[in-house]
């Protein structure tokens, strides 16, 4: 952690101490405090956003209370950063890239640990300067082990590997190479899966020293990347990952075994729906709700290669019954979707302004998944949010 960052913390500490030592009698003076947050609530969401179409340099992580639809605060980092919340909800980790002169100069990649209540940095660790720089900054680029002890950061040079950070000692442990395969899909206490370019999945075990101990790859592809690629990030329901493809096929993969075992693919669409051109699409078109064994998909009507087009409806599928069980019409088209993990889950959908289209404000829409009811919207989201996540 830098000296300046420490002095920043020290200043905050001084402000707090000063505030506490004010005599109780007169009404508290205005303007001496910096807000702190309470514990992360089940309906809070975190949005990752570049600063806008005019800037990639200052990634924002926006913290939003999905119940009150209020903006709670933000982290701001570097070039196309990614973030995740610790399982105990005490910390937010952000992986960032900074250049010493903004868009050029010496590159420094760093994982910063933020206190989740103060949204303030508490420590950082420099990592190898080869973080994967992709849009969207999806959750397969940064992942925590279920015990919250190790953090994996995806690299792309364009060779692929994962840097392993020990969050307890705040040290880089090592690097796991995943040639030809990308993404960190956590599937066990010390295991992750990656998708490979030929349509197979590889299962990688590692240890507390950040070393790969075993890897097993599927013998055969579970989907055909040439004909019908799947979106990178699946909906995980129990031990099964449900991948959805550009052409609305569902590819289940059981990853409780090594190597992971492909289930029988099925189509999300009836023939009529297919004729109408319905497809999944967006930056984050898929979310799972494990307790209900359900997954949610942003759907639009479009032609081939419309896989990033904003959805106009959310379709809900029962993984067990392999059929659609609900359909929610969106007041505004959306590109990212997320479902909370509690017993009264919310569905959140991000709407981006249409580029070169009629201006629509960036917004977060909220829905009850129980009733499908629209619960409201938070407008004027800063930047250009491309990915959404919650606390694990």
């Amino acid at each position, binding site marked *: 952690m830098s000296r300046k960052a420490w002095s920043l913390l020290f200043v905050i500490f*001084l402000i707090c101490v000063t505030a506490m030592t004010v005599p109780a009698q*007169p009404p508290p003076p205005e*303007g*001496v405090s*910096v807000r702190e947050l309470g514990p992360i609530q089940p309906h809070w969401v975190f949005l990752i956003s570049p600063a806008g179409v005019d800037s990639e340099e200052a990634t924002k992580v926006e*913290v939003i209370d999905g119940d009150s639809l209020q*903006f709670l605060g933000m982290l*701001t980092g570097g070039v196309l950063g990614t973030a995740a919340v610790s399982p105990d909800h005490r910390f937010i980790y952000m992986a960032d890239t900074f250049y010493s002169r903004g868009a050029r100069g010496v590159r420094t990649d760093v994982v910063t640990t933020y206190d989740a209540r103060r*949204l303030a940095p508490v420590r950082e660790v420099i990592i190898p300067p080869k973080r994967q720089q992709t849009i969207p900054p999806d959750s397969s680029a940064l992942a925590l082990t279920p015990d919250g002890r190790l953090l994996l950061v995806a690299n792309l040079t364009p060779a692929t590997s994962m840097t392993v950070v020990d969050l307890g000692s705040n040290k880089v442990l090592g690097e796991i190479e995943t040639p030809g395969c990308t993404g960190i899909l956590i599937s066990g206490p010390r295991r992750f899966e990656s998708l490979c370019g030929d349509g197979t999945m590889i299962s990688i075990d590692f240890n507390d020293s950040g070393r790969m101990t075993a890897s097993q790859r599927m013998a055969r592809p579970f989907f055909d990347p040439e004909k019908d690629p799947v979106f990178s990030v699946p909906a995980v329901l129990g031990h099964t990952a449900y991948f959805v493809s550009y052409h609305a096929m569902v590819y289940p993969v059981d990853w409780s075994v090594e190597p992971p075992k492909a289930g029988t693919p099925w189509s999300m669409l009836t023939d009529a729906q297919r004729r109408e051109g319905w497809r999944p699409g967006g930056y984050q078109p898929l979310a799972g709700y494990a307790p209900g064994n359900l997954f949610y998909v942003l759907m639009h009507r479009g032609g081939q290669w419309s896989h990033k087009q904003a959805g106009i409806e959310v379709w809900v599928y029962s993984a067990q019954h392999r059929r659609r069980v609900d359909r929610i019409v969106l007041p505004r088209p959306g590109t990212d979707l997320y479902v909370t993990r509690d017993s009264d889950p919310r569905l959140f959908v991000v709407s981006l302004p249409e580029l070169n289209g009629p201006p629509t404000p960036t917004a977060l829409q909220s829905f009850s998944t129980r009733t499908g009811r629209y619960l409201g919207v938070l407008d004027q989201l800063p930047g250009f949010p491309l990915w959404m996540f919650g606390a694990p």
Partner: protein
Amino acid sequence: MDALVERVTRTVAMRTSRRGILGMLGKLIAGAMVLPLLPVERVSARANTAEAAEEGDPLSCDYWRYCGFDGSLCGCCGGSTTQCPPGTMMSPTSWVGSCKHPIDGKDYMIGYRDCCGKDQCGRCFCQNNKGDMPLYRTQLDNGVTWCFGTASFVVNCTTAVKLGLKS
């Protein structure tokens, strides 16, 4: 450093009647402006004990305190009219405006204190400019990044803190 700045300012404030602060600012600026000129929050807070109730929407650019505002309202960014969002640093310095209270009809001095150390929030951007002066009247210039005394000159949002009655 923050505490130091605060202490210095409080001392300055104690020696000055609230009535005379603007005049003093003028003189200081015209002379040698080497000290951050602070909003003197403790003194003013005591002066406000018998203040009238407020009304209006603090998330609207029209809220009375924002008459000289320029920036994003902290109330839309995770803070409030008088609090900074989590993880930012409230500057001990500010530009100073004077706004009429809608109930008691009196003019209050308002300190527009920036919250620094995170990039712009951008929500609820308001620019009202009452009392805004060019840079040569530094203390009254709302285009200045008022992060003196904090560790960063990147502004996240701006608060509007009552400093006391103007007269």
